């Protein structure tokens, strides 16, 4: 009881890519097969546009997970958190995945740059707004060239931040220099502001501009809430799998899972709070240009009403009650299930945002087991491959963080 664990990491270090399972080639094969199947099935059913929407759904799903992990790193340095040291490396690696995620954005960005309407119908010069005045105003922001510049800017900024935190953390593994932590804490302040600004506009660009006449200042917060929730689920799931495989032994305790689950719970509710706030204000004000987005999603005449209810119960009420009790937050099997469940719900959330805009004519329900699901599995495969590639034969727990001892002996209050 009084003895404390020494601040020493004992987990074995071996490459995920070669020694354990060949995760990198496996992930890449699953990714290529999934996305390829989606493309092969999508082309005959709705052309490249059908594939693009399936791809955008799964891409935003994966992108938001990586962004949530970047937020997790920033927030932990910002608050000088001690409890999260041993799970921070997992988040750092997922944040590093933002660099290859930049490459994966090409199937969306390139057609847009060529002026193709395959994803965003604001790319066309034709009268998409129904009003030349509105179109002239919106064209100043929503044009292919500027879109391309912004996307490049996002990934340069996110990549640089992820690279910085990952690199400094690895340097500290070797040198044990405590000043590195101080530097990361100092830089996390202004980086958090930049992160918030880029995330806001990325949410506008990738998902909100699918309905270019619709606008909601709450939308980026909605995107952010889902992103952090899914990041918590991903970190939990990854930690459980890595511990199960023996790549991490006893550095991550039930106390850390308990805290991750608390954050998961908090962001489940934050997501619900924000999505209701967005809905409530638009619903109550009842302005046609705002309500139209929910009109397409709320009612069963378009086929999306049932999915909205699934989100209300599956993404908010059920996990809210399910993650409430302390005992379930400390149960590893339960958390394993909860993390997978929440990730599925997070994908459904993005599907619900993206897909109703596919059919511009009638906004009808569009879903295919052979187009949308393989694409999601493929994207998950890519993410696993990137993770294994970046993790390599590096330690998955920071070795010489000044708060390592605090973290290893951390206990939640009764």
């Amino acid at each position, binding site marked *: *009881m*009084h003895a404390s664990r020494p601040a020493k990491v004992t987990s074995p270090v071996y490459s995920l890519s070669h020694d354990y399972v060949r995760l990198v080639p496996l992930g890449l094969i699953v990714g290529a097969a999934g996305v390829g199947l989606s493309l092969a099935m999508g082309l005959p059913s709705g052309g490249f546009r059908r594939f693009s929407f399936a791809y955008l759904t799964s891409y935003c799903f994966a992108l938001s997970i990586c962004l949530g992990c970047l937020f997790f790193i920033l927030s932990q340095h910002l608050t000088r958190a001690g409890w999260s040291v041993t799970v921070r490396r997992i988040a750092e690696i997922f944040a590093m995945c933002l660099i290859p995620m930049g490459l994966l954005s090409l199937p969306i960005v390139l057609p847009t740059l060529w002026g193709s309407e395959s994803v965003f119908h604001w790319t066309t010069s034709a009268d998409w707004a129904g009003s030349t005045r509105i179109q002239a105003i919106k064209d100043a922001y929503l044009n292919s060239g500027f879109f391309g510049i912004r996307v490049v800017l996002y990934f340069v900024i996110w990549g640089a931040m992820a690279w910085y935190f990952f690199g400094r953390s690895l340097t500290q593994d070797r040198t044990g220099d405590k000043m590195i932590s101080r530097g990361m804490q100092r830089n996390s302040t202004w980086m958090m502001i930049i992160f918030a600004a880029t995330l806001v506009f990325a949410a506008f660009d990738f998902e909100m501009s699918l309905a270019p006449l619709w606008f909601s200042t709450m939308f980026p917060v909605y995107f952010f809430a889902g992103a952090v929730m899914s990041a918590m689920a991903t970190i939990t799931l990854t930690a459980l799998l890595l511990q199960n495989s023996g790549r991490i032994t006893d550095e991550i305790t039930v106390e850390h899972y308990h805290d991750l689950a608390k954050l998961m719970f908090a962001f489940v509710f934050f997501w619900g709070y924000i999505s*209701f706030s967005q*809905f*409530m204000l638009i*619903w*109550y004000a009842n302005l046609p240009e705002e309500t139209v987005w929910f009109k397409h999603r709320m009612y069963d005449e378009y086929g999306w009403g049932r999915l909205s209810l699934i989100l209300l119960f599956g993404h908010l009420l059920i996990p809210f009650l399910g993650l*409430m*009790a*302390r005992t379930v937050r400390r149960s590893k099997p339960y958390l394993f299930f909860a993390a997978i469940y929440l990730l599925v719900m997070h994908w459904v959330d993005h599907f619900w945002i993206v897909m109703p805009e596919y059919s511009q004519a009638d906004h009808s329900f569009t879903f295919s087991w052979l187009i949308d699901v393989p694409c999601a599995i493929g994207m998950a495969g890519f993410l696993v491959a990137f993770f294994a590639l970046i993790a390599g034969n590096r330690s998955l727990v920071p070795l010489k963080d000044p708060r390592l001892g605090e973290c290893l002996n951390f206990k939640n209050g*009764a």
Partner: protein
Amino acid sequence: MGHSVKKEPAAPRPKTRAVGLVAEFHDPHKLVDACDHARQAGYKKMDAYSPFPVHGIDPAIGIRRTRLPFFVLAVGLTGCLFALAMQYYTNKVDESPIFPGYRFLISGKPDFSLPANIPVTFEVIVLSSAFATFFGMWALNRLPRFANPLHRLPRFRRVTNDLFFLMIENDDPKFDAKRTRQQMEEWGADAVEVCEEDLTDQQLPKVIRMAGVVLLFFLLLPPALVFRAAGQTSRLPRLHVVPDMDWQDKVKTQTVSPNLGSEDDVDYLYSDLRAMRKPLPGTFARGDLILNTEFSTGIKVGGENGPVDSGTGNPVAGDTPQLKPDNSGEVFASTAASQQEGQTTPSTTASNQDPQTQDTQPPTAANNANQADGGAVAVVEPDWVDKFPEGVEVSLATLNRGQARFEIYCSVCHGYDGNGGGLVNQRALALNVTGKAAWTAAKSLHDPTVKVQPVGRIFDTISNGRGTMGPYHSQIPVADRWAITMYVKALQETGIQPETPVVSQ
């Protein structure tokens, strides 16, 4: 405990009661060990006291996890249901004989709509959960209590400084005064003492009891006053809680403008004493501009008794429609009426109150009705249009529109099939019998005198009213009035079967 015994030497019944045994320790580690022993010995009702938090004391003393979260969850869910039920009751229920709700129709919105009620529900959940947490913590800690018997022990005061204590209560099933004391000494207690409760400690002091009675009396005053005031009349003016809301500093329409100067130096807002400006000549309020045509009046343009130009009182030239305000009613003016107009100044309040018509003083339907009733002037019927004028599309869509409007505006008196069987008419006729109303029965639209009327005449009746029927020009737009006219014609053609409408031109 000695001094309390001294105070009351001949107590008939015991004033103190042993609560438990208190062991004293000089070292926190000894306290933790003793707690461990006590738990292993099977004691349940015990507590440890220390100047600072001691690591490991919770499991040593065997403290179970608190039941508070479950209590809070239960209260939170109750709060959720209560908030929803409360909002449902206030918004949806108004049939209840006592405490009826407020089921008001506002802008056609539904009485009860879940999204609008979520914020209040959320707040009630948060509030009730917070109260449950706070007061539940009190209850589980047996608070509030007036005194803790431990404070009677002089040595216990050092618990805030350098001593550690373990108390095992008398109520514990394993408690045995002799054996427990022995055990405590075995566990390394530096001293063992009996803790006794002075039973008078648990009673309220007399002063507070008296104050409570007085307060209770004052609390009874407001309901007593309310009870006394019920059913009584008062000559006192109403109480104005927010006077600047009841008497707002603003100028209302058609009132004399306020005197800004002193009483001696009169200085009104506007020199003509009006509180508002008259519209500029030749301007119209939005929606008031109507071209003086067959479409807007139902009178043949260029006919013998065509529509008059309200400005000059002269009949309008057939092919030059004039602009004319519509707000005093679509003026059809019989020539007789307009001649009368030139000689007498109408004193109808309706036209006086309308600044826009004050200059032109057009004859109104009310004037006509008054004059017709008086029998002084023979009313010459204008040349009503007998076909639907330009601008009215004769189609099934218009007819359906007319039916919908008819059923909203006309059917309450004239009935759905136009035979005068509307509910208002029935009720008013019933009241006529008991002398509670003086009601002219609504006319059946299938009356032979009505059936022969040209469409322009029916349109005019809808617009300006006839007899006791009021004008509807301000409620129903022109196009809808024509649609109703069309439906009335169709009704007349079909008798009383509105399901098979026949369009008749």
